[in-house]
């Protein structure tokens, strides 16, 4: 089965363009199934279901969704295989921009939108930097000049990715995206595959549901920040 990981900040249009690309894939005779990883709730499955694409949602609840994704990848891939699909698309929520779900040996798609501000490509981090394909949405709402500058900034962060402008509402560019997705590596399973970027080390008391503030409640992997120069109190 071919495997595509999709990542991008919230509300950038991941679901819209993936649903349209999957529909375009089907027209070309390639069936797909989608696993959506999200945090607290998601109604995105309705959009896929409406497009007739098999979909399942996995909610991480109290866990870090990226760790949750890695922990459940084998089962997710197996579920997609069980639907008889030829392509498995895994959509993740993006969230804190620190992580990337991208795997070595699978096609990595990053979705970002043109409304996020000119510094967004720098802030988004590994899910953009390590992607094979960057799909840029909402380009119809901004000037040509901003699109060009934005694309340049993306290119500065990721020299090798294919950059595509797509429109989740009209479907413009989604057929082209589907053609790229159809080239995703065909793999037997995800076991022993490797992430492209390590997930954060996060074993502190707050990972274990601590709610109180204060140094004495902080145990484990605790990192203290430097907050500028020390102030001289007039001494």
């Amino acid at each position, binding site marked *: 089965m071919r495997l595509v990981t999709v990542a991008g900040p919230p509300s950038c249009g991941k679901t819209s363009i993936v649903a349209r690309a999957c529909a375009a894939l089907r027209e070309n005779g390639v069936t797909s199934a989608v696993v959506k990883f999200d945090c607290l709730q998601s109604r995105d499955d309705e959009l896929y279901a409406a497009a007739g694409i098999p979909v399942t949602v996995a909610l991480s609840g109290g866990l870090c969704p990226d760790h949750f994704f890695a922990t459940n990848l084998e089962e997710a891939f197996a579920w997609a295989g069980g639907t008889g699909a030829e392509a498995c698309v895994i959509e993740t929520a993006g969230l804190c921009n620190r992580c990337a779900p991208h795997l070595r040996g699978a096609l990595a798609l990053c979705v970002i939108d043109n409304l996020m501000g000119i510094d967004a490509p720098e802030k988004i981090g590994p899910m953009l930097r390590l992607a094979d394909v960057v799909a840029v949405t909402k380009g*119809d*709402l901004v000037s040509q000049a901003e699109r060009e500058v934005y694309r340049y900034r993306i*290119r500065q962060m990721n020299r090798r990715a294919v950059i595509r402008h797509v429109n989740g509402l009209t479907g413009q560019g989604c057929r082209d995206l589907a053609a790229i997705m159809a080239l995703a590596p065909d793999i037997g399973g995800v076991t022993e595959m490797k992430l492209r970027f390590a997930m954060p080390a996060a074993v502190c008391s707050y990972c274990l549901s601590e709610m109180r503030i204060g140094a004495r409640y902080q145990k484990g992997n605790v990192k203290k920040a430097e907050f500028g120069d020390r102030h001289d109190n007039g001494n």
Partner: protein
Amino acid sequence: MTTETETANTETALRLSSLTLTAGRDKCGRPETGDIHFRPGEITALLGPTGSGKSRLLGDIESLAAGDTPTGRRMLLNGQSPDDDTRFELQGRLVAQLTQNMNFVLDMGVMDFLRTHALSREVASPDETAGRVFAAANSLAGEPFRPETQLTQLSGGQSRALMIADTALLSWSPVLLIDEIENAGVDKRRALDLLLSTDKIIVMATHDPILALAAGRRLIFENGAVTKTLRRSPAETACLARLEEMERRWSEIRTALRRGEPLPSPA
């Protein structure tokens, strides 16, 4: 999979001597009468009621149609069908677009932004280029704006003027697709003259008589297909001059009203 050879350094302007759309079919499957050729430095206006096929034609160009769109048209570049690699490389680069939905969304001053765009194009002297775009934009805008004005604070007309000037002078794309630029506060004729001077292929869907007549050629649409191709006649050139004079008067009256000046009695 194929990887794009393009890098930031090679995102330069593309050279194009002609673009052709082969005859397609209308919404009932009836064939179009002939191929349509587009050349640099030429404006083609698209006219017809809503739903008659103007947007489909713009879409065919934008998506580098290869017989795979509803119209069945194919796009040829310099007389030839682009191969898969060329198509792949041109996606998102062949065509610049200008529509009424577009807004500036960045928190930046006009001049800072133009310099940023010039830098991204890696032009020899970004400041000089930015200055040229700024001057051109101001000459199109009904009301002038300042170099430090925030993009998001520009009026509709000022934004449109800046987009037109920037597209004309800084965009990398050899083809410009315009979906309606009529907007109070932009000198339309000057805008078209500026765009024409850039040697781009310009295709413009419009309902505005002045813009339609300013184009050397008009394609008339019906039921999803081009049904007529018209060249501007001498009589129409005269009509255009009259319309422009009327528009000039209209704009004088608007200016007088905004300044609280009494209007002269009609001549």
